[in-house]
């Protein structure tokens, strides 16, 4: 207390300082709760609006002009297709890129350029990817507004996210393991494939699942490359037209009748349930991973 710079101050001053400190702590806690409370209100609002509309018929019925008949079958199937295809394209591509950057890349300007580029791509607004998808996949490559156009667009959208997560996971593999394998005469690829990748895989998968859940929730790029209008069938091939949950929800939100708003809320509940399942999978993976290290 002798080093107190404001040593001359009376006790009242100290009390005020501590009171101020306590008030600040409460204030910070309240601010933290803003996000939490907003989340709570949002979830309660959506649940109250939509829960009564969620039932088996809602899952298995196609869209309809009659709210009581409408469901999300085509949209749910479309979302699952998009999820699978996007995973199939984005996962190998991103992991390969991450392996290259962490294990192979020479330290030169081009590597730095790729790295910087990936960081910047992660910040590009998703609607810009929609413009790219519309111009390149839908028009230039003639893929039309098909499910493969949508999946390719979303794949490049989440590519930087997976690359960065995979890089982090690969970086976390201790160097001693690589050195030991090299010491035994393993080639670079053997080290990567048999030592680094297996150890990094849980981290990579966690990042991938989180990125995929972003893809499942995306709307804007798919408005540009996806379907608008009426679709009452599930896709059966890469060239089919499609709709996804967020697009169907958006369609219902933009209708003025309350019945459709309730359907939108019901669609949101299904979408959030899907996302929460994916997130739970990611968290379980992460926890198992962390325990092992």
């Amino acid at each position: 207390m002798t080093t107190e710079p404001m040593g001359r101050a009376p006790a009242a001053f100290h009390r005020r300082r501590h009171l101020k400190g306590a008030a600040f702590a409460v204030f910070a806690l309240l601010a933290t709760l803003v996000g939490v409370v907003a989340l709570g209100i949002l979830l309660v609002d959506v649940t109250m609006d939509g829960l009564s509309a969620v039932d088996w018929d809602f899952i298995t019925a196609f869209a309809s002009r009659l709210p009581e008949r409408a469901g999300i079958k085509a949209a749910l199937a479309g979302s699952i297709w998009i999820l699978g295809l996007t995973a199939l394209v984005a996962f190998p591509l991103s992991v390969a890129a991450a392996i290259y950057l962490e294990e192979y890349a020479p330290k030169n300007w081009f590597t730095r350029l790729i790295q910087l580029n990936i960081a910047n791509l992660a910040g590009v607004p998703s609607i810009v990817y929609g413009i790219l998808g519309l111009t390149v996949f839908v028009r230039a490559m003639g893929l039309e507004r098909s499910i493969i156009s949508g999946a390719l667009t979303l794949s490049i959208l989440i590519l930087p996210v997976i690359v960065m997560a995979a890089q982090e996971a690969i970086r976390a593999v201790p160097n001693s393991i690589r050195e030991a394998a090299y010491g035994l005469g393993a080639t670079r690829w053997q080290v990567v494939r048999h030592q680094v990748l297996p150890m990094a895989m849980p981290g990579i998968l966690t990042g991938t699942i989180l990125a995929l859940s972003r893809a499942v929730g995306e709307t804007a790029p798919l408005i540009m490359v996806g379907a608008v209008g009426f679709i009452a069938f599930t896709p059966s091939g890469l060239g089919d037209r499609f709709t996804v949950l967020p697009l169907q929800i958006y369609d219902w939100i933009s209708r003025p009748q309350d019945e459709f708003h309730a359907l939108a809320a019901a669609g949101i509940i299904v979408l959030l349930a899907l996302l929460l399942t994916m997130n739970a999978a990611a968290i379980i993976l992460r926890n198992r991973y962390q325990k092992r290290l």
Partner: protein
Amino acid sequence: MENRMTRFGAAALALAFLAACGGGDTDGPDAGAAGLTGSIEIDGSSTVFPVAAAVAEEFQIANPDTRVTVAYSGTGGGFQRFCAGETDMSNASRPIRDSEAQACHDAGVDFTELNVGWDGLSVLANPDNEFLQCLTVGELNQIWEPNSTVTTWQDVRDEWPAEEISLYGPGTDSGTFDYFTETINGEGGASRADYQASEDDNILVQGIAGDTYSLGYFGYAYYAENSDILKLVAVDGGEGCVLPSDETIQDGTYAPLSRPLYVYVRHSALERPAVRAYVEFMLGNATEIVPSTGYSALSAEQYAEQMRAIAEAAGGAS
């Protein structure tokens, strides 16, 4: 341990994909009773969209193995795809233009024009607006003309309140916009620009219903669906104020804002049984489906006549 994780991950991804494929297979090729299969691609006017979507919905319930896509790119955008052979049918809220017909002809696309119903273009306000009952075509023009100086209701009629008018109307791609600007402002596309424009009529309904001093226009169908939250404004085309209704629209007394709705069918598409069946389904059920979407249907006789025209066109094509 690591290996198991790897395998688990791979399996999870594989599962996700299998599930995806499974999702597509739920309607196996042998599910339908009628056994009709095939895809039908429809695009065009957003005004005709509710009719087309309703027909598509009912048709696919009757024929679960067909796949009908209905988009709403607008009448002009629809014809562009139609004449490129990309779509089988094109919905339109005005007759095809000569230039568009020429483009179709040049591309070797023959078609038949069907009149599936009538649309009254309705002028709408908020139900809380009590002073507004009727507008003359002149007043509508004054409000909507390019560079219009009208900002408040008082600018329209002196006795009305000096409240700002918020305007809602369809986007420039829609046939409704073309039609309204042509009839009211004398030239297709001529309109003031400072209003809420949306291709999506639902957004216009939301806007007008939420704003006491609003004014907007769009198809009568959307009014009929939302008659509880919107107020219909009568239009005086010189013969006194007339409210749009099924009768006034079809007999032409609701002038000048009533018009026929069209579906254009490509002849070469009619060779496909699914398309032929769809067109017949549409004409056969129009007297029920069209009114359910808020438009006015023609008489059963008139539809039967068009059915014969289609049979002839299909015969000529095959």
